[in-house]
């Protein structure tokens, strides 16, 4: 599956107007821990394909969205449901923890 990238331009359409569950990984190329999280996000996108929309947002190129959600530490993974941010996980977490959150999101 191709990587899904959110931007300041498509955020409204792809995330806020989505009636399902969306996961946004806020990252930047200069951030070491983000590089560790990135492949985990790719795997989650594959595992939950069709159930959850999983994508990344480069905070350097899309600072408007990042500051709108007060993202000041990366990686930050924000879970959206019906366009609303429900939960934020700050810092690199392990895959199981992300998975648990996604499953909670799906049943909520």
């Amino acid at each position, binding site marked *: 599956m191709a990587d899904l990238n959110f931007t300041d331009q498509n955020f409204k359409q792809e995330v806020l107007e989505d009636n399902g569950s969306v996961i946004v990984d806020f990252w930047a190329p200069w951030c070491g821990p983000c590089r*560790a999280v990135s492949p985990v996000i790719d795997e989650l996108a594959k595992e939950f394909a069709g159930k959850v929309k999983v994508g990344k947002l480069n905070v350097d190129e899309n600072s408007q969205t990042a500051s709108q959600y007060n*993202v000041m530490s990366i990686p930050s993974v924000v879970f959206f449901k019906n366009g609303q941010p429900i939960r934020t996980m700050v810092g690199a977490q392990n895959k199981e923890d992300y998975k648990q959150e996604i499953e909670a999101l799906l049943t909520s």
Partner: protein
Amino acid sequence: MYDVIIIGSGPAGLTAGIYTTRDRLKTLIIAGTNWGGQLQLTTLIENFPGFPDGIQGPDLMSAMRKQVEGFGAEIVESDFSEGNFSKSPFIITAGGKEYVGRSIIIATGTDTQWLGVPGEKEKIGRGISACAPCDAPFFKNKKVIVVGGGNAAMEEALILANFAKEVNVLCRKESFTKPSEMMIEKVKNNPKIKAIYNSEITEILGESKVEGVKLKDNRTHKISEMPIDGVFVAIRRAPNSEKFKGIEKDEQGYIKVHEFVKTNVDGIFVAGDVHNKNYQQAITAAGFGAMAGLETKRWLDSFL
């Protein structure tokens, strides 16, 4: 069954693995989901010998990992959860799976210790951080405070000074004592960095993000408020030792060490920051790793 299981994948753990694999010991490294340890959260390392122009922390760790894997170490990227440390062979659990080792090297290092003041927990990631290399660019032209008086605090302050308008370094004591003279000079010569001595934070203010801090002057006990956009925490660290039941620790949680690298349990060795609270450098961790690797081989050979 493995000859040795190394728990931790910073410079201590990976160096230990280089020694054990070269001694033909069947080696498993429980690297954790965030492998590579603290150096993954740094930028340029200038005091690791062999790199006259410095080396990026994450690059150094990737190189060490490649080296140890090249010698045949098996690496598992799951988190250690528990173990039976009464006697060899030891059974440990990581990522829901059990592994058995004749010997163990504990090299789990230390972790960020937060301040534990009101207003902190809910704003971690919203202006409170422990990783300047990750988060400094969010504070472009802003005002930040770095808490701590050691080398780590100096490093964070210097990174932040590349972005922020003003960097305050908050030190509980009346001067910086722990950092190297070179670091202190760099900090003092940076026009953006200001030191505040004899003070600590008692509360972090702001609703959805950091807007200010309450500072206490330790001499006068007077409390003042300071508007601020970011708080970077770099105080003393906490050893990752709580999961090692039956292993002796000191009152701060550092593992007690006998004869350089031994713990109180026969066959369980320790290396790096998790027992070494005095130096906590990449190079000292690597040195202890080498020692633990060699000692493990000697101990296993004593049964031949």
